[in-house]
């Protein structure tokens, strides 16, 4: 589903920072991959390269066989197939909850008002917000906003979902409700790439855990391997700091 080959990303302003150094990963359909690592390790940059919110400096990234770094690729078509959930939710504040979920369906997928509303209602019910469809995002709690954001991404019927630290901006008591939605998605067979600090989530749901440091993948493996028997010293150090 996702193939990243020798991906490099360098930011030049204000001085050269090598955010990604020769990152390669294969993510199969239906797989749930959790990316962890210390801050500044390039995990968010990697995730954002997967839908070209950041343009990789070199290398190849294929989404469902399409080379997204090729200038001839219609990136908007690819992005419609790749849902993304952000740390700061990024709901549209001038649109109601329902409109947040229907807008891209109408504009990008060209669905009718009725069909997109039906789809939105089903998804909002799934994430547990069906009683607040007419309120505006600023009247929702962080956890509720993030669940709406997940519904908004799911409304496009994506083949892949990218989660960029979806629970980092939440109050502790709201993390559970968002993780529950993500777990449901994982059980239903959604292909997911999650950047997160929730080790419990990684242990429980991930098929594979990727540990990144200084822009490179240090170690990747099953959660059992990763949490019980890490090979690299850097991984051990990181785990000892957070667990």
């Amino acid at each position, binding site marked *: 589903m996702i193939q990243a080959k020798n991906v490099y990303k360098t930011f030049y302003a204000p001085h050269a920072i090598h955010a990604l150094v020769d990152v390669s990963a294969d993510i199969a359909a239906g797989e749930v991959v959790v990316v962890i690592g210390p801050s500044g390790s390039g995990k968010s940059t990697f995730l954002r390269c997967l839908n070209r*919110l950041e343009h990789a400096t070199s290398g190849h990234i294929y989404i469902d066989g399409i080379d997204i770094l090729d200038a001839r690729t219609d990136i908007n078509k690819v992005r419609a197939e790749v849902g993304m959930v952000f740390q*700061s939710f990024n709901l549209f504040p*001038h649109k109601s909850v329902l409109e947040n979920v229907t807008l891209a369906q109408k504009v990008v997928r060209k669905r009718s008002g009725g069909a997109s509303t039906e789809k939105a209602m089903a998804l909002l019910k799934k994430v547990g917000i069906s009683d607040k469809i007419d309120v505006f995002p600023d009247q929702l709690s962080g956890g509720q906003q993030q669940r709406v954001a997940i519904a908004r991404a799911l409304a496009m019927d994506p083949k892949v979902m990218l989660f960029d630290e979806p629970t980092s901006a939440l109050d502790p008591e709201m993390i559970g409700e968002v993780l529950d939605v993500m777990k449901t998605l994982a059980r239903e067979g959604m292909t997911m790439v999650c950047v997160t600090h929730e080790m419990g989530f990684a242990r429980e749901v991930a098929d594979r855990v990727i540990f990144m440091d200084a822009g490179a993948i240090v170690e990747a493996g099953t959660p059992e391997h990763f949490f019980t028997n890490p090979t690299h010293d850097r991984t051990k150090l990181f785990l000892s700091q957070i667990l």
Partner: protein
Amino acid sequence: MREGNDHRVTGRPLHYNRWVVVFCFGVLVFLGLFYYATQKIQYVWRWNRTPIYFAYQEEIHVTSTIDGEVSAITVEGDKARITVTGNGEEETYTTPKQDVRVSKGEFISPGDTLATYKKWKAGLLVIGLWITLKISVLATIIGVIIGILSGLMRISENPALRWSAVVYVELIRGSPLMVQILIWYFVLGTLINDLLIANGWGQIPALWYGVASLACFAGAYVSEIVRAGIQSIHRGQTEAARSLGMTYGQSMRHIILPQALRRILPPLAGQFISLVKDSSLLGIIAIRELTKAAREAVSASLQPFEIYILLGLLYLVLTFSLSMYVQYLERRMATS
């Protein structure tokens, strides 16, 4: 406790009301002194002569175009039909019946008055006000379009677009509007009109050069307002829209511009209030907007004090209603 409450009349402390009185007194003193000064120079105030510059009754003479005899006068409702016959010709004139000056059988020559009536006509100031309004509305609409386009160009990554916008904004903001109006009319206008005439097309009236100069002037300022408004919207909004597969245009139209518009409405309103006031410069290219019309009224009436004071008040009415309307829009947007 009791004593503290006794000092309050309208929920405000007594000294507040005292200063309100001082303010009103100050205004009255100022007006009084002004009036006293005009009396000192023996200025004769004639406010009663100013209404004709808003509207007046014109006497219209209905005159015969042929030689002959009045053959018939028929009255239908409040209209009269006068028929003149002579030398094998016949002509019928329709006029309001109140002042028919001929009777049946009378002989008349071409140019003789058959009847008169009075008709309300707009005075100079109303004509000027209308032109000022027309110019302001047109220039505002065009200015907004230019401003949004060049604001978007200004934040584009394409250097050709970005630099065009920068050059445009800097050129316009770096020179006086008066100079720009002169260039629009006497340089570009001459050029364009001469080219049009050379190709056998008609000329473009001065009014349109006035509109163009104001629209381009306002557009440059709107451009900066739009740019700042768009850049004030958090980057995450664009990222969320784009990550859903929206194109640049779709994310601008549905996500960024609606949010930016709310934020830029107050500075935008200020810009258009300036535009209404700046239109007073267009008199120099012979557009009869409000200020030019007022100057003509002063030449005719020799009543500069009344007419210039009225002129100021008329602009105040325009700008004040505009700012009220924008406040209403802001409130409506805040609740939606």
